């Protein structure tokens, strides 16, 4: 079963063409590592796959519902003046996560944020915010996981946690991960897409 199918995918911002003529087939359970220099369209591709941008040309078919997509962006997509717990409670409710208290607690523990769960995100370091963003992305156990440079801002412990998470998800979920460090995900990736 194909999870993502793109044909001649194009995205322009005004006159600037960021993605052009991209063909992509990702089977369910596939793991695509997206690489390329800055400005090559990695983030644009992930936003297109998440449904946050619409293509300006070509075709794009995503075989999962919007609610089954987990999207990690450059920004954490959480309220800065709410705590980690409050943010995840809100997202858990919106995503209809079953037994969400337990799920939230488990993720906060796993990503080392349990002790800081009541602190406002504005007081978090960049690395802690990235860990919280990962919790938000994985909260609803998405079938399609889109991670835009997930290792950025993570310390060595955080990066190891993410390695383990990706290893657990690989094969079970469809993953598209953009990275400047392809070596890190190459052992798990079933396909490597180089843009630019």
């Amino acid at each position, binding site marked *: 079963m194909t999870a993502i199918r793109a044909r001649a995918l194009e995205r322009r911002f005004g006159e600037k063409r960021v993605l052009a003529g991209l063909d992509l087939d990702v089977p369910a359970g596939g793991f695509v590592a997206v690489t390329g220099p800055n400005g090559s369209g990695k983030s644009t591709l992930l936003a297109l796959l*998440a449904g946050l941008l619409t293509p300006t040309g070509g075709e794009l078919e995503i075989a999962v519902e919007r609610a089954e997509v987990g999207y990690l962006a450059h920004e954490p997509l959480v309220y800065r003046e709410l705590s980690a717990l*409050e943010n995840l409670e809100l997202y858990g409710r*919106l*995503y209809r996560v079953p037994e969400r208290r337990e799920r939230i607690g488990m993720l906060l523990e796993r990503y080392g944020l349990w002790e800081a769960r009541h602190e406002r995100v504005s007081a978090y370091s960049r690395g802690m915010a990235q860990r919280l963003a990962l919790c938000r992305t994985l909260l609803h156990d998405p079938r399609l996981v889109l991670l835009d440079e997930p290792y950025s801002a993570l310390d060595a412990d955080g990066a190891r946690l993410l390695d383990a998470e990706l290893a657990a998800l690989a094969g079970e979920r469809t993953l598209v991960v953009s990275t400047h460090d392809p070596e890190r995900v190459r052992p798990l990736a079933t396909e490597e897409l180089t843009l630019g």
Partner: protein
Amino acid sequence: MSGYLGDVAALARTSLLLELRSRDTVPAMVLFVVSALVVFRFSLPADASDLAALGLLWIAIVFTAILALTRAFVAEREGRVLDGLVLATADRSAIWLGKVVGVLAFLVLAELVALPAFALFFTPLGWETVAAVALANVGIAAVGTLLAAMAAASRARELLLPLLFLPLVIPIVVGGVGASVEPDPSRYLAFLGLYDLIFAILAWASFDYVVAE
């Protein structure tokens, strides 16, 4: 509470919680509306009629609402929270309705100070003016929240919002002033109710397209 209304309640609660923590919208609205009423008090000639003062009350309410609407999506713009909500909500109109509830609460809080202040500076308010203000709040929040979401995506958002909002609330001012000064306010109150109904349905139905990209 679960489902759609549960989403709305959670999002409205978030708006109120953020305001409770930052306290940067409601105090500004209260300060602005009281200041505006003081300015109006000294601008009007001593023998000016109460009807003129009632007209100025509506100007103060509309401009105070712009303050709330300008800040309505500030928290969602920071860190692209709106993208996260758009992905997470089963029905995106829940985001709009949650914000409407929040904006409505801010308007009511500001008016709890503004209306007694108006009565103190000018003339006591009748039930028809209070009813008109209540109905106007719904229309202002419904239309204004949609426009605030549109403006939030623009770089010129502070300019865009008043430019879009003011022409669309002219009917509210017409209905509000009419209900306040005419001997038979029922026609104008019905007009405000109809405005609320039509524009709330339009805004609710079109919000999905506004935040689609």
